[in-house]
């Protein structure tokens, strides 16, 4: 894979201007489970996600181009959420879903099918009791107006305003 390939986030907000429906969150034994869209299936042009009567992030999964370090889940040069899901959630299927995103999926690209077998239980908006905790790291995410000091020996790791 070329290093500069644009990858996609498999759990994007529906408000993203390039959001595309990836799956629908159904239930299995009382637990949320994503049913992935067949190839060629898409929402009608007049679909209004805000009219569902619930935050669409609880009921639908969207993909969108990964924002990389512009995303709050970015950690140490990759997706911290993708890694946290593997660390904190158990697999819920035995084989990777044949989803339409695989080739460009950020989670799959970084973690392989370990992400895919956990992916069906992920809802973009999660009840606090079901949320995955993404640990902080020494590096990211980076506020865009702050940058590490370019001075060779900054005092106490100071940051400078751009």
């Amino acid at each position: 894979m070329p290093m500069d390939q644009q990858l996609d986030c498999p759990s994007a907000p529906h408000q993203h201007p390039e959001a595309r429906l990836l799956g629908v969150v159904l239930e299995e034994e009382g637990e949320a489970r994503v049913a992935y869209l067949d190839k060629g299936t898409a929402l009608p042009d007049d679909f209004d996600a805000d009219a569902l009567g619930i935050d669409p992030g609880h009921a639908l999964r969207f993909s969108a181009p990964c924002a990389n370090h512009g995303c709050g889940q970015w950690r140490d040069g990759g997706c911290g959420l993708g890694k946290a899901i593997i660390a904190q959630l158990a697999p819920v299927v035995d084989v990777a879903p044949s989803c339409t995103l695989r080739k460009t999926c950020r989670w799959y690209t970084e973690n392989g099918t370990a992400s895919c077998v956990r992916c069906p239980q992920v809802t973009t908006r999660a009840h606090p009791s079901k949320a995955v905790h993404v640990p902080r790291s020494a590096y990211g995410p980076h506020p865009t107006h702050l940058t590490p000091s370019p001075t060779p020996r900054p005092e106490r790791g100071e940051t400078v305003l751009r």
Partner: protein
Amino acid sequence: MTSKKKAARIGSDQLMAGIAAASATAKTRIQKLDQQDIDGVAGGIDWDKILGTGGGTTMGMFPSEPIIGSNDF
């Protein structure tokens, strides 16, 4: 022989019915989890309501500098 557990799929003929079912079951699921939370942490502060973040935390992309009280991307 045991069959392998697979994720469900949904086609265009079932999509709108699936979305209707998904929003209905999501409401029930969240109400149930809210009730369990109230039972477990009576007296806790509901930060979602205070901050207006709309019921839940994110397991997805969000701006690295979120605007408090807004879900706008």
